[in-house]
Each structure stands twice: as C-alpha cells, then as structure tokens.
C-alpha cells in the first residue's frame, strides 16, 4: 500500500472520529415537560412567551436580569431566568427557542432565539394588521 493511501485512510478515520465525538456533544429539542425530566441537562426548549404572566426587566435595577414565563404547545409552563438584556420584540415573537437547563424548577437560559413574524414575511398576520388599521 502506498504512503498516500495510508495517510488518506488515517485522515478519513480522524474525520469520522471527530464526527462521532461530535454526536456526543449534540443536544436535543425538548418540550417543557421533557426538559423538566432532564433537569440539569442542556436542552433547547421550543416554546412561546406567556403573555398573561409578567415579564420582569428593569434596566435601572439590573440590566442583566430578565425573567418571564414560557409556555409550550402542550400547555405546560415554566419560569425562565436570563442574565442578559431583554431581546427587543420579545412580546411580538410567535415562537422562541430557549437554550439552557432546568434547575430547581426554573429554566436558566443561556441564549434566546426569537422567531418573529418579520422573519416570515408572507405571514398572513401582516395582512391582518393592514386590515385592522383601516
């Protein structure tokens, strides 16, 4: 066998090993109920903001503290703590992906990804607004 072939095989094996190791780092998308079962494990929660519960953010007291309640499609809810500024348009978002872990019944959030209607420009809601404004 040629040296080149050996090197090719070694490198391909390394690439596969890297990908296998990567699968160990992967996380999962969860609902609130299943996230609660996996307390302490890093998960991605797909939920939305519970509009009926208060959103706590006061830049005067602490610009790095946000708390709100998330609710998912199954109707479960959990209180979320986020140590950063409040993302703009959070109230308008239809869907939020929360990255973090459940700890003592609270969701300690590390990162928030908002899905706003603006992303879905062809959303009929934009048109409904147009109608109501007339």
């Amino acid at each position, binding site marked *: 066998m040629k040296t080149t072939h050996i*090197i090719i095989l070694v490198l391909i094996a390394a690439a596969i090993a890297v990908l296998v190791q990567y699968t160990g780092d992967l996380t999962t998308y969860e609902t609130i109920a299943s996230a609660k079962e996996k307390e302490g494990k890093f998960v991605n929660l797909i939920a939305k903001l519970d509009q009926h519960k208060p959103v706590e953010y006061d830049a005067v007291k602490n610009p*790095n503290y946000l708390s709100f309640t998330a609710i998912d499609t199954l109707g479960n809810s959990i209180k979320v703590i986020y140590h950063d500024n409040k993302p703009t348009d959070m109230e308008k978002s239809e869907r939020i992906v929360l990255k973090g872990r459940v700890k003592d019944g609270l969701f300690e959030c590390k990162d928030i990804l908002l899905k706003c209607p603006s992303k879905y420009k062809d959303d009929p809601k934009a048109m409904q607004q147009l109608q109501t404004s007339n």
Partner: protein
Amino acid sequence: MNYIGEHLLPGQIGHFFAILSFMASLLATIAFFKASRKNIPADQEPWLKLGRIAFLIETISVVLLFVVLYYIISNHLFEYKYAYTHSDKSLQIEYLLSCFWEGQEGSFMLWSFWHCVLGWIIIWKGGKWESGVLYVISFAQFFIASMLIGIYFFGSKVGISPFALLRNEMDAPIFSRPEYLQFIKDGTGLNILLQNYWMVIHPPILFLGFASTIVPFAYAFAGLMKNDHSWIKPSLPWAAFSTAILGTGIMMGAAWAYESLSFGGYWAWDPVENASLVPWLTLVAGLHTNLIYKNSGYSLRPTYFFYIISFTLILYSSFLTKSGILGDTSVHAFTDLGLNAQLLLFILVFFIPAMVLYFIRYKSIPSIQKEEQTYSREFWMFIGSLVLFLSGMVIIAKTSTPVWNKLFGTKIAPPEDPEFAHNQIQIFVVVIIGLLTAITQYLKYKDTPKSVFWKKIAIPTVIALLITIPISIWGDISYVKKGPGFLAAIHLAIFTSVYSVVANISYLWLGLKGKIKAAGASVAHIGFGLVLVGILISSSKKTVLSWNTTGVTPLKVTEGEKGNAAGSPAENLTLFKNIATDMGKYMVTYTMDTTNPRDRKRYFEIDFKANNGDERFQLYPDVIKNNKGMDGFAANPASKHYWNKDIFVYVTSFQENKGSDTVSFKNREVKVKDTLFYSNGLMILNNVGVNPPAQQSKFKQDETALFLDITVISKEGKQYKIYPGIALKGQELRSIPDTVISQSLILKFNKVLDQSSGKLEIGVKESESITDLITLKVYEFPMINILWIGIVVMVVGLVMSIIQRVKLNKKTGLKTA
C-alpha cells in the same frame, strides 16, 4: 372586477421576460450541447451560432427583469407583492438595490445575471471549450429561470414570480374592493439589518463567487463527456478567480457581521456562513490538485472530484439557506417559499449525472501508478488539499443536523457551545494547513534534494520561532476558558500561521529570487497566513469592556457565580443621562440623543474619557425603529478604530423619561444618627459637615456650605452614599440636592430646624422616573486589522497568479497553433 390605480404593464413585461429567459436558456442548452457533440468545426458552427443567439436573448431578458423590478420598487408600486414586502417609501436610494437580495426571487436574478456575464467571457475566450462549458451554464440558467416563472404545470406551481400581485398572493377582504390600493399606503419595508452599506456590496460579490464555481465544474463535466483532459489549463485561472471572489464575498459578509455585530463578531459558525465557506474549502483543494496535475501528472482524479463537489456544495448551500430548513438553527436564513422540491432537484440534476459520469470514466482518467516522493511538492500539496476537503466535510456534516432531523424525524439540536465544537477541531486544521503552507513551496515537484530543502527552510523557521515565542510569552494569549489543551493548540496554531507568513515572504527571495511575476502563489499564501494569525489573535482576545461592576445593579456577581448557566452575565451596563459611569478603563457618559429623519435612526452620544487621562472621544451608536409593523428597534453599533484594536459600543435598550415629574418632596425631620424609611429601604444620617473638603466642587469659595452625610441601604442590601447640602452666601440660600439614581431617590437639605437639639429638615422625593437611561454593551476586539489586511493580500496574490496563468496559457496556445 376592475381595480383602480393598478399599474399592470410593468408586471406583464417582467413576466414575459421571465418566461422568455426560461425558454431561451433551454434552447441555449440544447444548441450548445449539440455543438459540443460535433467534431468538425463546420458542423459545430450553426449550433454554436444558435446557442449564442439564445444566450444573448437570455442575457437581455435577465437584464430587463432587473430593470422592470427596479422600476416597480423605485416607483413604489405596492400592488406588486415584491415591492410591498421588501420596500417602503422612506427607503433611501442607496438601499433600493438591497431590496433585490432581501427576497429569494431577487437573489436568483442576481445569480442568473452573473452566469450570463461569465458565459460571455467564455464565449469570447473559451475556444474549443466554449460549447462544453456553455451548455452546463445554460442548463443551470434554465433551472434558475424556472424558479422565477411562477406558472402552474399539471397542477403544481413552478417557481415564484417576482411580479406577482399582492391581491393574488394574499387573502384579505380589502381585495374585494376595487379601490383597495388607496388603503395600501406603504410597503412593509426592507429589513433593517440589510440597511447597511456592506449589505449593498456583499451580496453581489458573494453571488459572483457562487456563480463562478460553475466554470471549473463545467470544464470538468465537459472534460468527462469528451474524455479530454486538456481543460486543466484554462480552468486554473477560473478556479483562482472563483477562490478570490468567493473568499472576498464571504469575508465581506464577515465584515458586515463585524460592523453590525449581528452575529456578535465576524464569524459565528452560523449555518449560513458555513454553507458558503465549505465550497470555498473544496474549491481551494481543487485548485491545488489542478496545479499538481498540470506540473506532475498526479491527482487528476481528485481534481475532477473536487470541482464537482464544490459546485454541488454551492447548490446545497442555496438549498440550506433558501428552503427554510435552518429556521431553528440560523438567525439569517430565508424562509420557505415552497421551492424546496425545485431546489432539491437543482442539486440532484447536476450532482448525480456528474458523479455517474465520473465513475464511468474513472478508470480512463490518467493517473500515475508510481508513488509520489516524500520530498516532493505534489505529495504535500495533495495532503493539504485532502485536509481542506475533510475539514469542509466535517463542517458541513455538523451544519446539516436540521436536514437529518427532517429526514429521520429526530430532534437533534446543536451542542451547548456550537462555536467551540467547530473551533476545537478546526484549530488542528489550522496547525496542519499553516505548516504545509509554510514548507511546501520549498519543495520542488517530483523530488527535492534533502540537504537543499533543509538548508533553505532553516532560515524562515528560525525567524518564525523568534517572532512566535515573544507573542506566546508576552502576547497575553490567555484563552483558558476551554482548558490547557485548547490553549496549547492555540499557541501551536499561532506558530504555524506565523511560520506560513514568514516562510512565504522568505520564499520571494530564497525561491523566486525576487521574480515578482511568478510570486502570485506566495503572495496569496502570505495573505492566507495573515488571515489565520488575525483570526487566532483576535478571537482569543475579545474582551467585554462594559463588564457590570459599577454597583448600579443590586445583584453583584460574585466569583462563584461567574460559572452560572447565564455564561457571561452582566455584559450590559446602565447609563443614566448625563451621569458619568466608571467602566474600568473609561468614564462613560450618555450625554444626548438625536433623531435623524433621513435615515430614521436615533443616535445616542456616548462620551468616553480614559481614566488615565490620555484620550477622550465620543461614539454615536444608533437604534433604528423596526418596520413591518413591529414595535421594537434594532441596534447599530458605533466603533472606534485603532491600528491594533477596535472598540464597539451598542445600545441594548433605552428608556425615555415620559411625562412630567408629578411627585413632590416630602419634608421629614431628622437628627444625626436617626434612621428614616423610604419605600425600598432605609437611610441613616451619619453626620453634618461644614464646608466638607470632599464636596468642594459643589460650592463656591465665598459660600458657606452644610452637607449631610447619609447612607442609603436598599432592601436588596445595597449601600449608597448620598450628600445633599445647602450653600449660604449672605442672605442667599442655595439647595444642592443629591440623587440615588438606581433607587429613584432624591434628597434635599431644606433647613436647620433647631440648632440646640440638632433637628434638621430634609426633603425626600421618590420619583417615578428620574432620567432617561440606556443600557449598552461595549466590546474590544484586538488585532482584527491583520485579518482584513490578510484578505486583501490574499486576493492580490490570486489576481497576480490569474494574470500570470492567462499569459502563460496564451503563450502555450500560440506555440501549439
């Protein structure tokens, strides 16, 4: 029904040309294909002529599509859905072009336009490869054109027309009224992230890069069809061109991300970024194996493979970003417009025939059985190409988890720290590639005498070590977050990337003896090395300046808490208007804000004063109100550029003091050592000072001043000192109130009630809103300029080698003719 006020003609013209370009590209494909199958020039000629005419019609159609859509957008014809969803009346002229790339339709048009331009260059210069390359390009054009026709075939819709009418696309009761247009006063506007100068130039360059990858692919495909491998010479400058332009396009996107901080830096391993980086990596691999084959006869098979896979990955990247599949993992992908099947077909229709043909021809593609020498350039160049390709495969595999989820119904999400998941692997790729970039040029093709090689490489090796060791020791590379192993890898990578810069600079003298004409590759490699150095140093040393330690927040971060789930808490700092806040290196003050009606932005003036007194400057970050019926705003950072670092500041939120202050002072009696309560805690009067030196700045020399020393303790346990006072000059009494902003508390020293018993009167006011405030983040990025300079040098090097290759090809062309 007859609708009032609609302009239907432009749309009809546009739609006509969309269909015309669809038909013309199909005709061009057939004609050029026929031409390529004929061996005698006389037989070719009529087909070539037909192909060129069809290609001309197609080019004209594509240009006119642009003109018509531009007319619709610039005239604000909101009866067209494209104008309604992607523009509004207040949009500045310079951003009208950006409307083209906000929508998928416009980005397809851009792609198609560049194919036309490239096609004409091949028709002009391509010689015997004209027909072979052109039918591949025309076929791609046919697919892109099909995305823009928006016609139903057998009940299923093909493409989306950029000239669709709003009333046909949306279901709403107002469309039942003939005068509906009167109610649509304005469009929903261009996404504010795209209202940035980088976003005017980045997409055209990037799409030129995307479009240009079809040329090496088309050469390879035509070569396989004819079983003729002489295309490897004309393909070289094209591959170099594609590398240069795609690289520039990607890095312009990085510059935009950096300037707008929309990814929190210039690179975030976002799927959208990865999807365009990976074809670049495989293309660079192909460029190198192409060179190997031309100079040594090795590596033709991998060259075919790399060129095929690069274009396939471009198609895959367009599928990833346009199908909406990245919805949950990327912040910047398009949304699904129902083109997924078409996009998928676009990939397969190019990939499958190319791969089938590749395997059929595999045996007949020339290759050398004898093994490469270890001391040969081709051996290490091939290893480098292979590493680049595998690195690309690892990146794209990780990026494709959403596709996996879709296929198998799994719920896999990216890891907790997705950036590190890439970094920890790619850092070793940098080590290997840096090393190979440094040494490979010192090896000759075929074989190199060992002693000569080691003698020549010795000097640059020593210089590189001399440069790297001080950086490692005193450069403060202290990225300990991810453990000592990763830190060691960073140091190693810094060495190899410095090595690649130094070795390639030295090679200009040692190898080329100053022959600048032939220096393209070395210059490009110097640039590439600088890019690596810039990335390593700037990424491992980004610092947060607005680390919140000012005491404005009651939740002080203790040492133990730093590792909490929030990651890096307290990056936001609150600034109250006109109150200087200590931010470590600087005293920062939010002094004023203004609204600019032209660009609809609200600018905040932030005054920075260095605590060592060296400098003072103002920065003007702004926020722009969201359009599309949204309430919020988007922040644009402002930056101060130094030669060795950049300071970025951006506003994360702001609050205005609305309405007048209706709360009045309540007067309270107090004695020294008394405790008073307020709504959120208590305050203790410690003592009364006459002309206290600490407060000297607040009263004049000829005044007599009395100041109270009060400690305020909030419920959260936070302590504040507050010094209200009075100043007396003759009969004139002046009150000097003091505030605890974060407690919304104002104290005023009214008067002395009874001197003998020490009774005083103070006024206490708890205001609802004391002042305007903003929260902001401030970052410092060091040494980023090395990265930008590196890109420029790399592109200059690639252009040099394109010029050299084109000249060489001309010469050899003359010889054979």
